């Protein structure tokens, strides 16, 4: 997903060649891309947790549906919120992607190095 140079609008890996430390902006962008990959895995794991109740529930009695509903919908809402935050992060840190043709959404501190 990330290109060999910074010309694509993904993480900007290697935009500066083999530099040891990236500037804050590129660093942020990289972590954002990590989040992009982790998010669906994170979500899937959270949605799998109820399956564990099937095993543990045998001793303390079955888990009531109301609790399962609450858990699932809270996790669901959480994921939605995190994804919304990620969207805002993308808007903030990946200008090349957000930048419109008219330059309307261009943030003032545009990273010229991109």
């Amino acid at each position, binding site marked *: *997903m990330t*290109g*060999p140079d910074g*010309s*694509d*609008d*993904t993480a900007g890996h290697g935009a500066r060649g083999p530099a040891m430390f990236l500037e804050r902006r590129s660093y942020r962008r990289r972590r954002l*891309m990590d989040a*992009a*990959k982790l*998010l*669906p895995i*994170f*979500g*899937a794991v959270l*949605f*799998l947790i*109820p*399956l564990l*109740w*099937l095993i543990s*529930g045998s001793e303390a009695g*079955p*888990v*009531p*549906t*109301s*609790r*399962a*509903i609450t858990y*699932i*919908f809270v996790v*669901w*809402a959480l*994921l*939605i*919120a995190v*994804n*919304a935050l*990620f*969207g805002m992060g*993308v*808007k903030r840190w990946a200008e*090349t*992607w*957000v*930048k*419109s*043709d*008219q330059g309307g959404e261009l943030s003032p501190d545009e990273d010229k190095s991109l």
Partner: protein
Amino acid sequence: MASLNILVAVCLGYVVFLFLVAFAADRFAARGAAARWLRSPLVYTLSLSIYCTAWTFYGAVGYAARSGLEFVTIYLGPTLVMMAWWWGLRKLVRVGRSQRVTSIADLISSRYGKSNMLAIGVTILAVIGVTPYIALQLQSITLSFEIFAEADPEQKYLSGSSVFWVATGLAVFAILFGTRNLDANERHHGVVTAVAVEAVVKLVALLAVGIFVVWGLAGGVGEMMARIDASEIGEWHVDSGRWVGITFLSAAAFLCLPRMFQVMVVENVDERHLRIAAWAFPLYLLLMSLFVVPIAVMGLDIMPETANPDLFVLTIPLSQGQGGLAMLSFLGGFSSATSMVIVAAMALSTMVSNHIVMPIWLRSRGSGASVSGDVRNVVLMARRISIAGVMVLGYVYYTLSGGGAALAAIGLIAFAGIAQILPALVGGLFWRGATRVGALAGLSAGFILWLYTMLLPNLGGVLMPETVLAYGPFGIGWLRPEALFGIDGLDPTIHAVIWSLGLNTTMFCLFSLASFPSPLERLQGAQFVNVFEHSAGPRGWTGSFAQSEDLMIMSQRILGAAEAQTFFQREVTRQGGRGHLPEPTPGFLERLERKLSGSVGAAAAHAMIGQIVGGSSVSVEDLLAVADETQQMLEYSNRLEEQSAQLTRTAAQLRDANEKLTQISLQKDAFLSQVSHELRTPMTSIRAFSEILRDTDELEAEDKTRYATIIHDEALRLTRLLDDLLDLSVLESGQVNLNIRSGRLSEVLDRAVATVLPGADRPIRVIRRSEDEGVDLDSDLDRLGQVFINLISNAQKYCDAEQPELRIQVHRIGDTLRIDFVDNGNGIPADAQKMVFEKFARVSSEKAGGAGLGLAICREIIQRLEGDIRYLPGEGGGAFRVTLPVATGRMAAQ
């Protein structure tokens, strides 16, 4: 209690409203001044909601009533897909836009080197998978009608005819708004907007019923929760396999369903909308499922045992006397069904017409891909017919299946069928090594297994007898459709999914590894997998003035400033706007493309405009088309060059001819003046002397004789001159008849010498070698003699030596005979040498015996005899060489 009549009226009113919405949206979009909301992320998000069909609107509650929370997996899959939007969906959308993909079949085929076989496979799979799904929607509409009909005993209700009319109405809608335009860049604004409106209606309806149930009937969240725990689905109990499997299946179907692909990729106007949809669509799903369990529990509680849980959404409000709410709920279900059917029919028809109907039509016409504008109408017609065909299939399936409970299971079956596309899709997007052979193998394997383990067992009856299901085909136990290789005890759905998708993926990988892709396939693979490096950033078809400016700049470069400005100005006038830049409406773009294609070729023009407007990258086919055109242009220019060279040659020849004509004309003038001069001189003396003879009376006899002699001599000279002229003109015009005879050269020379020498005052001495002259000739001997006489008499006349001598030498070289006449005089001065063969050319005026036509006549004669005569300089005197062919002379005689 809402009567059926009111229901039908509301229903029709709602449909009319949808028509108006779609019509208005199309009008807005066509005017180019598309309102912002038409292209907003909100509309995009809402249009994604066609994922929620009637199966989920009504069926989710039924599902929950039967299996508890498991229903939620249908929504969790798409939610997880949306979580991965940045590296998953975004790539899909980018590829779709940059390759101008029109359907999922198109995407798959385009990834694997434009393989139409793959496209046909995906299309067939989609039609088989989606048709029952359409039937399911029709059934849901009928069922909901029936609920109202039961509540309204006065009306007789015929479910069959109502389904027919519903199907017809939906087909008309899809045809009207789905087949307006062709290009994938031109979106179906009308349909998408109508779908968005319906999305709002169904969400509002379900929320309203849910709120009514929780706060109106149960009395609050706490009470509701207590009621849930007390109900028959009050315990957390799901099948782990189904939980994971259906989540995965719904995620796969979300990506692969033709209608989802249509709204998510094809209708996407701006990639950036994904950023909003990534959280807004899961939120929509969450809201859609929020009240499902409460409604299900409430239905189980208060409705009679016999009530169909699938219709709790409708029957609970009805049973509580909430006619208005029931009506809203009905509209919600109606919306879910109609929007799904319309978009699915559109998407399927695109696939069917593009990959099945059009190839057949083109082949039947015998013309290749090079077809012109009239195909547009054919494609649109094919698409319309395909929509009608898909509808008919759905209707037929509905009537054949009898609308029974068998249909309810069809949702997951359709999901599993469509999910067979997933390996080829994901592999194509992320793995460059994926090949066409692999995709075909995977798809076929998955399709067959899906048919065998899932579709046929569920259809049952004739297609898959009970015995096969229980004991396997021909009693082979390990081939039992629902327990392949003896793996028993699995949930049939999970069993089918694991086997079909597992084998699909395995075959896909193995065959991809083993096969070698074609060059086009490899190029496309790179284009797909590395799409973010190849394509420009997210550019929506936003139709802004900035684009018009870009177009203007480009057009000026190609057409020239003045012409481009005139064209743009004309477009502004046509659009009735002001300023100097027109709105980039589809019509304008089309005309501009036509105009540009006149200069750079159709393919190049399309690619250029696509670059600016569509934000699409130049695909390999574009490049091939451009190369084709370039090739044609090269050929054309080569031909032009050839023609121009030919013209240059012709022009040079014409110039030469013209010069020659001018020269000849000058010669003619000179000749005429010469002739008149030559005629005048003797005439003058003849006139003068004849006047003397007439007017003078006493003339002496001697004078008389002298004058008469002069007159006679001059008359003779005139006659000779005229004879010579006549002779020359006959020779020059080529009308002379040669009298070819055989003879010896020596005899001809003898005669010539004998003719000239006698009678001369001081005969020239002629030196000859008779042994050389014994040559046989086939020629016009008289004419040849004339030439010799002329040459000898010239020598006789002009040789100014003390002892004039003429040597006649004969050489035979191969087939040519050279006869040289060389005298020992001073010869001809160098400046006169060139002129001696011209008419009236006389070397010295004082010795003017003849008219100066002799040598001209000689040259003409020798040329007629296919020989040559020229002056030989540097022989010590006047020297002429006559060259004659020996052999050709013989030839001419034959």
